[in-house]
């Protein structure tokens, strides 16, 4: 029998072979792009390539930060993340607690319906939102006209978008999150409720004094972790739902959509990379910070 090369033999060797595809995948898809981030400090030239292009230091970042865009996209990214987190939490948690009062048959029906939007991609959601918002044919404008109002040009009015985006986000996210919290409630020991009932506690008291406190650890962890991800916006939501309309960038543009546009439409590759770099670094800091807070609260729940 032919002898295998020595590194392939033995437990560690064989396990290394099993790990090899994963190793290569992350090397090419994650680590090499991390090296490629030097583009952010160069004046990228397609013909010269990443390594041949001229170094320009922090010029690209500077160029971004002196523009109005920097403030706009950073502000939008953070504010939207914040309101998405808060809205989803409040609505989903309330609904999950209420859902717990229903019989199983109804729980199943409502859960299935509320979960439906989860299965749609943002592209498809934009078809739906467009059916409502389209200036000429949209359902909302038809309604407004039928009651004698003036049609509204939704895609041209920046002031509408914080509400629209929050609603659309909630619509898509609520089912999944209700299910998440509902599963958490299901995990609560029933004897707490039995004891409370014997003591004559009302439903509301039980919800506020038992369910909410016992869900607090789960909620805290989810909250802090989502704060760690605050600097990563939802590209699909902010690109497709506003139809990538320039007039309303002031309230719809986030870092992710800006980076995409800078790369594909504007074609300023180096600046786009610089903004991406800024996002990655702040994102890393936020995750590290979030994890530190979790560790302080409860070591069990921290990511590492």
């Amino acid at each position, binding site marked *: 029998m032919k002898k295998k090369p020595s590194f392939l033999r033995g437990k560690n060797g064989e396990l290394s072979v099993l790990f090899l595809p994963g190793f290569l995948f992350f090397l090419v898809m994650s680590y090499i792009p991390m090296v490629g981030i030097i583009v952010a400090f160069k004046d990228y030239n397609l013909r010269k390539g990443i390594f041949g292009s001229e170094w320009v230091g922090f010029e690209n970042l500077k160029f971004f930060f002196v523009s109005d865009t920097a403030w706009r996209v950073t502000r939008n990214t953070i504010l939207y993340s914040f309101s998405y987190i808060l809205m989803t939490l409040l609505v989903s948690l309330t*609904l999950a607690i209420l859902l717990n009062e229903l019989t199983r048959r109804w729980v199943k029906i409502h859960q299935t319906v509320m979960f*439906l939007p989860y299965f749609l991609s943002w592209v498809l959601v934009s078809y739906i939102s467009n059916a409502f918002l389209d200036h000429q044919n949209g359902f909302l404008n038809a309604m407004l006209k039928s009651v004698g109002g003036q049609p509204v040009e939704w895609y041209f009015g920046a002031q509408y978008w914080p509400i629209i985006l929050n609603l659309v986000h909630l619509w898509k996210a609520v089912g999944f999150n209700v299910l998440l919290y509902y599963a958490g409630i299901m995990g609560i020991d029933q004897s707490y409720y039995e004891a409370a009932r014997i003591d004559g506690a009302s439903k509301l008291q039980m919800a506020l004094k038992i369910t909410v406190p016992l869900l607090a650890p789960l909620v805290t962890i989810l909250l802090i972790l*989502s704060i760690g991800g605050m600097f990563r916006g939802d590209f699909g939501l902010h690109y497709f739902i506003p139809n990538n309309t320039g007039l309303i960038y002031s309230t719809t543009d986030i870092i992710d959509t800006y980076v995409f546009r800078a790369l594909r439409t504007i074609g300023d*590759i180096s600046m786009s990379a610089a903004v991406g770099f800024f996002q990655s670094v702040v994102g890393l800091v936020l995750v590290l910070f979030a994890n530190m807070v979790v560790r302080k609260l409860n070591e069990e729940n921290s990511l590492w």
Partner: protein
Amino acid sequence: MTTIHAAAGAAPEIPAARSAALDSRPIYRWLINALFIVVSACIFVPFLLVVVSSFSSEESILRHGYQFIPERWSLGAYRLVFQSPKILLRAYGVTIVVTVVGTALGLLLTAMTGWVLSRSDYRFNRQATFYVFFTMLFGGGLVPFYILMTQYLHLKDSLLAVIIPGLLSPFHIMVMKGFMSKIPFEMIESAKVDGASEMRIFFTMVLPLSTPALTTLGLTIAFNYWNEWFNAMLFIDTPNLATLQLLLVRMLSTIEYLTANTEFVKQLGIDVGQLPKYSVRMAMAILAAGPMLCIFPFFQRYFVSGLTLGSLKG
């Protein structure tokens, strides 16, 4: 990326019967149920608008906009799409290929990687875990990835550009690892005493034992591939390689798409000005999303159980 938070929800299985939560006064339950019926209706109604619009006649839409009860019902939009179904069928074909290949390969790779990370007796376990895990925390961002894929790997206009990036995700690996670390180590030990190699153990013992995790993650990966549009949008320009989602992206502005895409228009054999574009657009959305939207809900519980299968720490 979006899934980091999910791991913390270490929620248990839903018990079969729940008598304790039932209030003795049914009026409360009816009020709450009424509230939920309103909520569910609000969530469902947008779907209805798209479905109804796709069955509306073009004149009704032009005159009254998209409505829940159109002036005149019509199958015209569907008839038009089915007159030359080539583009739609092709997109279905491409999407199915991407999903099947990506899921099969991705699942195998996830299992292999997850298994190695779950083996605390592996000499490089710590390093390997950090190596995978760190990619969740930091990345090069879009631009280096884009340059790598197009300039160095030359994957522009190749389906590999859609398949490869979705193969592995650190989150999926962590879920898999969490599940696999519950496989009793004595079983592995005794197989080794019998002379089985690590490869053999993995393929003949670990994989069959991990069926629950494989089902859940397989569905999640398949779902992600089916709904993938980002990489397709970045890397696929050839209409022949368009996935369903990309087709929908391109169709978003139907008129621009049709005028730019003379081949499609010629296939349809009509001039662009008279095209029933509004109802067709909705019909395309239904035909592209409908079948899956009917299938996925049956697997709903797997999407949630994926969160609870394993925790990040192991």
